[in-house]
């Protein structure tokens, strides 16, 4: 299957499930709004009745951060870090939960409905959660490789008098990390699809088989993901760029900009759902083809079954 065809089919599926967009957007926004509201509340507590707020609103001044830090004794680094990690973890778990529902619709070609979606969320959550934990181990392995490469560079160039080799090596490491993390991401995605499509409860075994699958079909799979990651990056860059260009000089302007940026957030969510949907299409197609090409047809149709 071509990437274009997978995308075309994916678009059709995602556009049929507008309720999914809303659910993913609402969950992300809710989790994001919590720390944003907490930080704004701190700002309001400090500046709510201060004439300085207007000046700071036009141009943020580090001195105010210094005042806050002084008021709170010192920068509460540990609680802030804990809160950040907590928010990140909550968001990840929520997204994992929703992923189960989305895959239930995309992988099993069902129509979007609350019962189907949330039924899928509940049914698939624990297997996806275990899969995520296994992938965390693989993630640690990637970081281990990265750390090893870093240590090697330190040994070779660390005592030198030039930063250039270390910087260039850093770029190489970053590229390799991206490749490995991207691959890991693909393994996670396709294992998740497999677990849901086949109603499989053994993520560990599926994970290793998906290694082979992603390796064999790396070009198609990675190409599809790359297209959608480029779209996501473009939307993110557009959001950053428009924020820098568009002056926020009135409440109206802020709200207009917020609306535009929310549109871009929805666009990013759409592209993410499109990734899932297209991956399901792609996987189904490759699996079928693998099954047909096999000299001895597998006992059950579908590549997933051949992998199982």
């Amino acid at each position, binding site marked *: 299957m071509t990437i274009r065809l997978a995308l075309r089919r994916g678009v059709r599926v995602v556009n049929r499930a507008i309720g999914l967009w809303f659910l993913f957007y609402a969950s992300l926004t809710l989790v994001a709004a919590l720390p*944003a509201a907490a930080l704004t509340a701190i*700002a309001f507590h400090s500046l709510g009745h201060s004439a300085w707020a207007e000046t700071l*609103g036009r141009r943020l001044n580090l001195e105010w951060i210094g005042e806050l830090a*002084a008021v709170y004794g010192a920068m509460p680094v540990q609680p802030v870090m804990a809160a950040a990690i907590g928010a990140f973890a909550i968001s990840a778990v929520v997204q994992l939960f929703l992923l189960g529902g989305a895959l239930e619709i995309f992988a099993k070609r069902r129509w979007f409905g609350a019962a189907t979606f949330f039924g899928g969320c509940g049914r698939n959550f624990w297997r996806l959660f275990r899969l995520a934990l296994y992938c965390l181990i693989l993630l640690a392995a990637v970081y281990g490789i990265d750390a090893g490469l870093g240590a090697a560079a330190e040994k070779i160039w660390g005592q030198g*008098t030039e*930063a250039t080799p270390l910087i260039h090596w850093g770029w190489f490491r970053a590229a390799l990390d991206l490749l490995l993390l991207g691959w890991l991401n693909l393994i996670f995605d396709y294992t998740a699809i497999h677990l849901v499509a086949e109603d499989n409860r053994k993520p560990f075994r599926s994970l290793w088989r998906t290694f082979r699958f992603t390796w064999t079909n790396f070009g198609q799979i990675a190409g599809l993901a790359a297209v959608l990651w480029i779209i996501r990056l473009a939307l993110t860059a557009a959001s950053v760029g428009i*924020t820098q260009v568009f002056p926020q000089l009135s409440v109206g302007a802020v709200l207009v900009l917020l609306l535009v940026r929310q549109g871009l957030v929805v666009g990013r969510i759409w592209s993410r759902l499109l990734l899932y949907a297209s991956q399901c299409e792609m996987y189904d197609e490759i699996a079928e083809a693998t099954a047909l090409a096999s000299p001895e047809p597998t006992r059950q149709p579908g590549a997933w079954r051949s992998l199982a």
Partner: protein
Amino acid sequence: MSDQVVRYQIGARLDPAGKTITGRETLSWRNESAAAVPELRFHLYLNAFQNEKSTFIRESGGQLRGDTMSKDDWGYIEIKRMQEAGGGDLMGAIRFVHPDDDNADDRTVIAVALPRPVPPGGTITLEIDFLSKLPKVFARTGYRQDFFMVGQWFPKIGVYEKAGDRYATRGGWNCHQFHANTEFYADYGVYDVSITAPSNYVVGATGVEQSAVEDPRSRQTTHRFYQEDVHDFAWTASPHYIRIERLFDPARAVTPAEAAATARLLGLPPDRLRLQPVRMILLIQPEHRWQADRHFRAIENGLKWWGLWYGAYPYQTITVVNPPYGANGAAGMEYPTLITAGTNWWPGREEYFVEGVVIHEFGHQYWYGMVGTNEFEESWLDEGFNTYSTDKIVDMVYGAGYVPVHILGVPVSEFLGVPRFTFGEIDRLAYLQYGKHDPVVRNGWQYYDTFQYGLNSYVRPGTLLRTLENYLGAPAMARIMRAWFERYRFHHPTSVDFEKLVNEMAGRDMTWFFDQFVFGTDWLNYKVGSVACDPFEVKLGSYAAGGKRIVIDQKAADRIAKERRKRGERQLYRIVVKLVRDGESVFPVEMRMTLDDGETVNEKWDGRERWRRYEYTKASPVKSVEIDPERKILLDGSFADNSYVTQPAALPFVKWFANLLCWFQMVLP
């Protein structure tokens, strides 16, 4: 220009393999006091790095300015021979002393008992052979591969303070041990130093290079540097340096308008601001070569503005050293006519820390170099003054810049839209973390910790000097600073001298300012305690009038109010404002109240009471109350509580919430 108490003639040979310097020093020292001096004292700074028992390592834990000292290659200095010229051997007369603490293991100061005291006005000449072993770069000095930054490297005589000098009540040596939080103090003199290094090495040093003579057989070149009227000598060598030299030409660098504006500010005729050409020498790493223009522009701005504001740079050269990767311990340091800069692989175009470091270190040519304050005992007089001057120049010439955020060596602040900040803002941010532990003036090793040393030496003085400028006015402050330079150039003034100068030049007693903010530890914070604004209403109750009692109930009150409005009487408001002095320190403040109809009311409060109440009857409700509305008192611990607006501004909070929301939406999974 200076009284040239010392004269050093040193021959030094660098051994790049052994990381050592073999030196022969001839030192002449003149006794300026009226009493005979029976003993000499010397700094042996490199011994701070010889083992973990030194005071320096004990205090620092082997860490300084984010740098960790290598424990596999120690630094030290050994005196191999010391004798009086034409006299006897003095090796037996040497003993290690530790005047600042009880650390008998510290070997950074020696006392040499003389067979014959140096008479008043007399001069003694010593011949000293020494071996200096450099540590891996740490705390300003050392080596990294074939890069050598050679500072604090030779036996250096202390300062003999006669009674009346600085705080001395009787004659004695001011020769402190080397501490983690201290820098240096020395007498002015002449340095004539010959450095022998491999011929492929580029050598830079304090002073003007007189000659470079190569011995083709040994492939060694001897570079001779000479400089008068300085109090230290440092040098650097590396085969990788790219040496670039340009001329600072005042006629090109200073526009007539700039000269005229500065002359007006200082109240001086423009010809008093004449600067002289200076050879600017940059020793830069090959991978930083593309940053050469930035370094030169920065040093030009230093030469120009320090020269215009305080007085012309009198030396012929200024050498800027760019240490290589991994030698950060040698970056950002000042020596007479030689400074070390600090940069990274790719500094962002509008990150001005490269410029800030160059300008700051150049500024030390004035505050430490020519105005030779004691960095051991009053570090604010060089670092604080220099922070103040650096902030003024960088913020004026370059404006607000980005805080450096680098990912994989690439500056990303500009792309991420991170807000920009001035050096002044960053310094006040740091000042606000002052924990009331120490006064500004204190021996460097006696601060609560290294953070408090830095805070009280750099940012708190910088902030207090800017507050002083705002209080006295820019012209008065500019004239004070110029007088400070002109009066104390090549002398050793103190904080008390500066206080006297301020009182004299300002024409008023500023002792209260110095007592609180330089010699004291108290905190300053004024705030708006409360603002009440109530419309005058008909008061309910029973009133005696015309021999009978009238009861005003709510109905009657409403009727009276309605009649008043019909008659066109304006609604009046009773406004009560309470200002509070939250900190212990006292500072005269201004208060500005703005009403809804645009009327403003200004008050001046001497700030002495704990709080002050102001009451007004006005025809318009209050809109805002602000203490120090122009934010001149930068020492105030909080600007946020300096004002009260009755209607909070919605825009900033809506904007921040919207931006934070979008940012979190972007980064959360």
